[in-house]
């Protein structure tokens, strides 16, 4: 498994806080970017490699976040234990819905995942006795790892970057494994994959559960980092934003997903100056990228650089 990109990103993640100490864009926006990168990579496993669209990925992110929030505030569980419980819950739910949902294709799959996401979101709003309703849950205790409190922006930047790198590692190993090859075969042609003896149903459902678990883990960390959760963070719009991150970078490209996540995290920060025009510009960027670079921004640039490099080598 090629690790050049992984090592490079690790170096960048370590170097940034030294190059820009106490910088808002590194420790605060950078931390959010790391959360988004985890989510985008997990969704990319499902969309890019297994070829299954999901418009409800935010639901799994929310399940992880709310499990941690509820268990640590109401029953004073330890954060790590709560995280494990959240992962268990999400894993079971994802497994149960994976079979019927993944039998669907294309628009129908999109609609089913969308419906699932909206149902979970409504449950978060309506079960006020448990989730605090639209107001959410605040005062979530900070994470502590072996007595080390994660209580500053810089520490959170470290934890989230490390978690994102771990997710990247998992992603790269899955993709380069035997299962990864099976997945890519599945994306290219499900029928051909079946004739080669790949159990496509089991394969898809495994990857669905893995993607859900990674999202839930990110959610759990997110809840502790924000110390506050509310249903708005896990809405249909956020699911759409996650799909956008994956597609903007380029489907089936792990680094593309990271690129998309980082770009879409920083874009609103830059668009803030346009105030009311922000929504319009965001929509236009989304539409234009897909029309003119349907393979994704990152992948398109990567391909062009590759071609340019090959031409230079050939010419010399």
């Amino acid at each position, binding site marked *: 498994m090629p690790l050049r990109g992984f090592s490079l990103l690790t170096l960048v993640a370590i170097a940034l806080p030294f190059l820009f100490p106490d910088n808002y864009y590194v420790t605060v926006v950078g931390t959010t970017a790391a959360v988004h990168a985890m989510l985008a990579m997990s969704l990319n496993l499902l*969309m890019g490699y297994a070829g299954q*669209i999901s*418009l409800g990925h935010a639901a799994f992110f929310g399940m992880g976040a709310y499990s941690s929030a509820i268990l640590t505030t109401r029953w004073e569980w330890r954060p790590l234990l709560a995280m494990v419980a959240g992962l268990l819950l999400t894993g079971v739910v994802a497994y149960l819905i994976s079979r*019927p*949902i993944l*039998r*669907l*294709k*294309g*628009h*129908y799959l*999109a*609609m*089913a995942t*969308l*419906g*699932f996401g*909206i*149902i979970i979101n*409504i*449950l978060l*709003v*309506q079960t006020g006795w448990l989730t605090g309703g639209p107001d959410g849950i605040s005062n979530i205790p900070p994470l502590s790892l072996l007595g080390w409190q994660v209580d500053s922006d810089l520490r959170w930047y470290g934890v989230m970057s490390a978690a994102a790198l771990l997710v990247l590692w998992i992603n790269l190993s899955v993709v380069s494994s035997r299962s990864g090859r099976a997945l890519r075969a599945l994306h290219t042609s499900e029928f051909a994959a079946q004739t080669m003896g790949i159990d496509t149903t089991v394969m898809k459902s495994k990857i669905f559960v893995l993607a859900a678990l990674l999202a839930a883990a990110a959610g759990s960390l997110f809840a502790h980092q924000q110390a506050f959760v509310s249903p708005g963070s896990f809405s*249909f719009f956020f699911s*759409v934003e996650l*799909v*956008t991150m994956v*597609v903007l970078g380029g*489907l089936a490209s792990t680094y593309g997903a990271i690129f998309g996540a980082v770009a879409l995290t920083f874009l609103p920060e830059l668009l803030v100056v346009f105030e*009311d*025009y*922000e*929504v*319009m*510009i*965001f*929509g*236009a*960027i*989304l*539409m*234009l990228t*897909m*029309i003119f670079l*349907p393979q994704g921004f990152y992948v398109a640039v990567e391909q062009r650089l590759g071609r340019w490099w090959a031409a230079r080598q050939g010419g010399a």
Partner: protein
Amino acid sequence: MWDQLPQLLITGVTIGATYALVALGFAIIYNASDVVNFAQGEFVMIGAMSTVFLSGNSGLPLPLAVLLAVGLTILVGMALQRFAIARSRGATVVAMIIITIGASIFLRGVALVVWGKEIKQLPHFFSESPIVLGSATLLPQNLVVMIGALLLVLAVHYFFQHTRSGKAVLACSYNRTAAALMGINVGMMMLIAYALSAFLGAVAGILIAPIAYTSYDAGVMLGLKGFSAAILGGMGSPMGAVAGGVLLGLIESLSAGYISSGYKDAIGFLILLLVLFFRPGGIFGKTSAERV
């Protein structure tokens, strides 16, 4: 308990009639171009919001404002087809979904800039005094919505079954290449399909705006509901989509009345999931869910 049933049915059919028009628009575009248009809800919003501003702020008489608003929405629909959909022929399902989602966000953004964030209402078309029917009351506007939607559905049915252009659009949806070989101008038919769909959305928005209010982001939920209704009834058949719309309206209204208004959307989507799991072609449809 049965006392409130007639009232719930009236509410359900009224909102269902709106869903039906949006779902019909969905089904027309889906059948003509294999695209699920996530910007369908935005047609509803543009129709209603531009009527509000043309009649209220510019002081035009309501009928003229409605006419202009519908015309504007049709132009938006045709522009969407020409500049976004037609340019991306052959793109994957996911890419197409993102393009139409991008278009819907863009249109919402434009509406926000042009019309602001306030919630708006259109005046009722006729009197606002309710008609009493036993234990239920009915606003004249409820009747306007139901009758208006019914007439439009019949007109669309007539268009597809009995006019040359309608049959040509249908031919394109069966087989584009064959249609082109028969001398049908496929590009033009696609434009007609999007225009028709935008027209239906705009009218739905204008009819319901006196009852349900409107705002720059009113299209999101209506679009999703229309999509659900279309799938509920079967994407392959326009009339199935209409039935799905009315059914979804009734489901929502009855669950709001008898179970909980907070959960009404969740129940709607839950039934949708069950339909997808057990009858993926829709309740009234025959096509399989594998159609991609």
